[in-house]
């Protein structure tokens, strides 16, 4: 364990470096836009560098153990400590958050949404980054809660200030939903704290002692956490904030939201709810699974009903997170592996889709599927990228999406002992049906937007090539997107790059469930 303890500064630096950037930017006048952007980007890159260093220092043979552990006093009165660590589950998400931030920064270089003011925008983004990274490494419930909440306000403003027409409603909705969830979650945390003898908020400690709680109590505490996390995921009945938030948010906001924020919920399930309350998990699993498959079908139906491209993508997130939750609900290492992979894959793919949607919006000033057509003809590269992402999103083997989707379905065939096989096999079939729906709405979207002849209203200025606004993918977009596209392919072809890291960590979690 000792060789894992050294270099314990890495995580703290990686998490709080963005705040240093924020401090610097506070003293840069608003007018110095380029300077602000530069500082923000440099900060993000520096953070990413730390992240890369973390990758290199990570001991992959012990991916199941917490690494870079750091623990110091924080709130001694309530026995909560500043306790951080990283294992195979956290690592991909932790790193992904850094990558996404950098890419979004690059994209923002010439895509600052109205009403401008890059300084504030980028500061919020950096704060967001700290919150996201922190959530994935916190090993203390209170610390986790603080980070978990830290992302709220920046996202609220990102949507509310830089969003679309209906942004104020969307942002408030987003905030109230999440806050409602986390309020109950906090109550659950405290109940957990006292039921385990009011000794500590440290997750490892709670994992050891949580199982001893009486089953009924567990079920109730789990309920509190469930609402907290399910809202964030979002799972079926709690999902309605997502489409609004996504649709109204600026491109960067949507990307971060889809790529990272949604993962906080699923991560919470895997890191906190399930390992700490194994009995309750077994009780809840069928219901979680049920909501998951409902989400899959429901999200797909939602997609088919949309006339707005971005909203469609948003609904597809509901469906995809359904697959993730289905994997988790099986409580098997197979399913959880799929879930983690699914989180990352969904982050890459849907993030990418939102990038594309944003660029389409920027060029055509509309996302109405009915008005768009012939992208392939007018902006071929963008069109091909859209097609690529659609294929990845519908779970085409060889691309990242498949590895979150198929193993999740697979795992539902035999869930952990103690769960009804029949029920979960039904779930499996429904989920498999969901893949067809996914193909349906994505191809349908693609056929209507990319195929056919371009809509004359956009070619009116003469030939489409010299149409002033509508140009093909530009440099910043290429820089921002290429890494994602590559990652989608690489993880699709060599999934073990990630499974190798996840598997041991998940194994340790599942071992606790005794299933």
């Amino acid at each position, binding site marked *: 364990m000792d060789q894992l303890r050294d270099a314990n500064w890495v995580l703290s630096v990686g998490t709080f470096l963005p705040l240093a950037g924020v401090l610097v930017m506070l003293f840069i006048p608003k007018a110095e836009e380029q300077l602000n952007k530069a500082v923000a980007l440099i900060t993000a890159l520096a953070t990413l560098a730390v992240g890369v260093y973390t990758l290199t220092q990570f001991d992959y043979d012990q991916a199941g153990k917490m690494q870079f552990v750091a623990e110091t006093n924080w709130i001694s009165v309530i026995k909560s400590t500043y306790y951080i660590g990283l294992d195979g589950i956290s690592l991909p998400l932790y790193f992904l958050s850094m990558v996404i931030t950098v890419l979004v920064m690059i994209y923002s270089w010439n895509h600052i949404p109205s009403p401008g003011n890059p300084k504030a925008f980028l500061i919020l983004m950096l704060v967001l980054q700290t919150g996201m990274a922190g959530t994935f490494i916190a090993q203390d419930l209170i610390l986790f809660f603080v980070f978990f909440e830290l992302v709220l306000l920046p996202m609220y403003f990102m949507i509310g200030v830089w969003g679309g027409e209906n942004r104020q409603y969307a942002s408030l909705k987003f905030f109230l939903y999440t806050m409602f969830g986390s309020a109950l979650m906090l109550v659950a945390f405290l109940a957990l704290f006292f039921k385990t003898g009011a000794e500590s908020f440290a997750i490892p400690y709670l994992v050891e002692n949580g199982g001893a709680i009486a089953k009924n109590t567990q079920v109730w505490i789990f309920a509190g956490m469930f609402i907290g996390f399910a809202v964030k995921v979002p799972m079926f*009945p709690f999902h309605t904030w997502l489409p609004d938030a996504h649709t109204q948010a600026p491109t960067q906001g949507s990307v971060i939201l889809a790529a990272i924020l949604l993962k906080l919920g699923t991560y919470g399930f895997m890191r906190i709810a399930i390992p700490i309350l194994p009995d309750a998990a077994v009780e809840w699993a069928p219901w979680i699974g049920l909501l998951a498959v409902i989400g899959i079908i429901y999200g797909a*139906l939602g997609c088919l009903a949309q006339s707005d491209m971005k909203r469609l993508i948003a609904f597809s997130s509901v469906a995809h997170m359904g697959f993730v939750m289905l994997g988790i609900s099986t409580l098997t290492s197979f399913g959880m592996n799929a879930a983690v992979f699914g989180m990352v894959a969904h982050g890459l793919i849907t993030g990418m889709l939102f990038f594309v949607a944003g660029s389409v919006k920027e060029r055509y000033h509309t996302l109405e599927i009915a008005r768009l057509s012939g992208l392939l003809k007018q902006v071929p590269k963008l069109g091909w990228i859209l097609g690529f992402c659609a294929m990845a999103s519908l779970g085409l083997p060889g691309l990242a999406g498949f590895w979150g989707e198929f193993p999740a379905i697979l795992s539902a065939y035999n869930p952990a002992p103690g769960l009804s096989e029949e029920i979960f096999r039904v779930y499996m079939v429904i989920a498999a049906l969901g893949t067809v729906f996914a193909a349906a709405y994505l191809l349908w979207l693609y056929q209507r937007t990319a195929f056919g002849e371009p809509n004359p209203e956009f070619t009116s200025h003469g030939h489409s090539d010299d149409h002033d606004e509508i140009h093909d993918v530009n440099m910043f977009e290429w820089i921002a997107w290429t890494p994602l596209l590559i990652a989608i392919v690489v993880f699709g072809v060599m999934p073990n790059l990630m499974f190798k890291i996840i598997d041991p960590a998940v194994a340790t979690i599942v071992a606790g469930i005794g299933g």
Partner: protein
Amino acid sequence: MFAASEAAAETAAVALKSGWFLENAWIIPIIPAVAFALIIFFGKKLPMKGSELGVLSMLASLVFAAGAGFQWIDRVNGASEEQFIDPVIKTWTWWQSGGFDLTIGQHIDGLSLTVLVVVAFISSLVQIYSLEYLRGDRRYTHFFASLTLFSAGMMNMVIADNMIQLILGWEIMGLCSFMLIGHWWEDGANSRAALKAFFTTRTGDIGLLVGTSILFFSANSWTQEHLGVSGFSIRGLSAWALTGNPGSVAITAGAFALFAACIGKSGQFPLHTWLPDAMAGPTPVSSLLHSSTMVVAGVFLVARLFPVFYEGMNIYGSSMNFITLIGGITIVIAALLAFVQNDIKKVLAYSTVSQLGYMMMGLGAGAWLPAVFHIFTHAFFKACLFLAAGSVSHSGSHHSFDMKKDMGGLRKYMPITFVTWVISTLALCGVFPLSGFFSKDEIIDNVGHAGYDVFMIVGLVGAFMTAAYMTRATYLTFFGEPRGAAAGEHHEEDSHGAHDSHDDHGAHDDHGAHASHGPHESNAFITVPLIILATLAIGAGFLNATPFGEKWENMKKWVEPRPVVVADMDHGSVGEMRGLRTADTMPATTDTVVATEDTIVVMEEGVSGEAKTAPLMAAAAPAESASGEEGHGEEGHGSHSSECGKKTPDAGVCYAPYVKHAPFKWSKAALSMLIVFAGIILSWLVSVQLYTRKAGFFFGLTKRNKLLAAGHAFLVNKYYLDHLYEKIIVRGIAHPIAKGAYWINQNVLDGVVNGAGIGTKGIARWVYRNVDQRVVDGAVNGSGAVARGAGGALRPVQSGKVNQYGALLFAAAAVAGLVLIIINT
């Protein structure tokens, strides 16, 4: 006896040969994959717009595949006859989950090599052909990129070591099919057809996912224990299926689920409707994907996991099962449909469906080898037919595929095309000695021999119809008087605006080149592939020419896996195990050796060098002539090689079940020949009456005879299948029939996909509007409203009047006091 066992032990000891190409067959799909990437990124900058990369990569992988093929033949010839020819398997860890490794790699055996060679070969020719056919196309580069990617996917599927890898290739093919059918996506019809194809197959793929899952979890523990491979592994699944008791429910469910995927992919009834629509793609695509290679993926899967279906569908010793049923139905309905098509490509499409039905039926009846052999031969002549059709439209009929409108009498103008077409047609009809005969006839024969008598009849009927509709097509295209474009007429876009003339889009660019003069022969890029394919259509059959005796049955020797018990991990090495086995089953061996002819072959060739077993040979001959044909199968059960698939091997595992082989009978061959020629001649006469003399009994028959008219309409609308789907899936049974008539007149394009799409979209919109926006969302916003409402309700309390405040204050205090007093005392 002791000696014999010794001999057996020795023969078993022979080490299998291998070779570089075999060991590294995994490179074969890599080549086109890399080529694909190169074309995508640099294609446009290259002199030939990237097409050269495609062609080269195809030729390269053809070389590799051929090399591997020869080394495999070498391997087989080097092995003893009793020996199981281990497939060349190489695996790498691909991903790991739940604590064990899941692999990617190659599983090379006769089957995979056969298909591999076919794919590489046809792809090469088709790409060469396309150089000319799509010259100047708008998306020339993308076209070749897709073709190459397709080949990569297909080859990957063929060499797949496990189900996941197979699914990978499977889906990539689907994707390419989508891209290629929709190649000219400016026309909505094409993109809809592409969507339909992808979506229909994808629907079938639910079965693939589910089936794989079922099999994986049922088999995994066993395979891990006995073979040290995961439950995805092809090898593992085959062996597990043949352990005799793999939990019949699981394996049946798995088999059915997988077969659903095959139905979708191989255009079997009732999911065949996407295949004819797929003809919207450019002709080379039709010839490569939708006739010779991609659509046989389903058949390949059944052949690949034959043991699973063997057990799951209870193939052995029954006279009817799901696979044969589907196959049989498909043969007939598709063949019937072929009669009423005016689009030459659609005729070929339905004939493809029908031929796929043959393959399925053969596999279903346990005629494994003939079915696989039919994949092989069918690929050549069907590809040739499509290319010929393409050539006709390209140079003969001015980019039209309408036989009635724009063709006729073309044999004069396009001799090469004509000859190759006729050859392939005869091959397709199964005329001796063309390749089709050796495969198709074998299927029919073996189906009958395996006891599926009904389906033998179906097969013969199918043969008759095949001959008939092909003759019709041939007549319409090449005989009679030139019509329309074939007569050199210039006609405008509107004259072939119908959905059966998509190649126009490709022609926009080189319109002038052909518009100037009438029909003529195509150039070398097109004719050379035609000639090559035609030659193969003639000769390919002799690779397994059963009629000429065992010496000619090379395919059987090289490709068919041998139902032999092999040692697994915890049963020691092959050698000792074999010795042990032969010791106790020797009596069985001796008498069955005399009986079943295939075992005779085994003995004869296997130990030809050794005098001591010669007597067996001698004893065999009379027995063979004496005992009746039926006898063979029955006694065959006793032979040790037939143990696989019927009861659990007491030690070791099987990789292939025992299947019967029908002995060739000239009588049966003659019968089928008769049927075929009857078909050809009858159809010829009818065609002459209908299309040239426009008189006689058959002319206008459908007008005169109500029943026939109904039947004709029934066929023209393809049994109303698409319509049926649409009704059921979209509007539900309750939908008023009245509207039906209108929809009947609508054409194919409102089919399953759009139907399902419309329906689901309808539901979706409803759910979204009413459930999501009203209920779920409303609840939340509602609560907000409630809070604000409460606020409003409470405001009057805050009246601003001091006295009321005071009253409230004291009242509250008093009430609290009273209540608490009452509670506490």
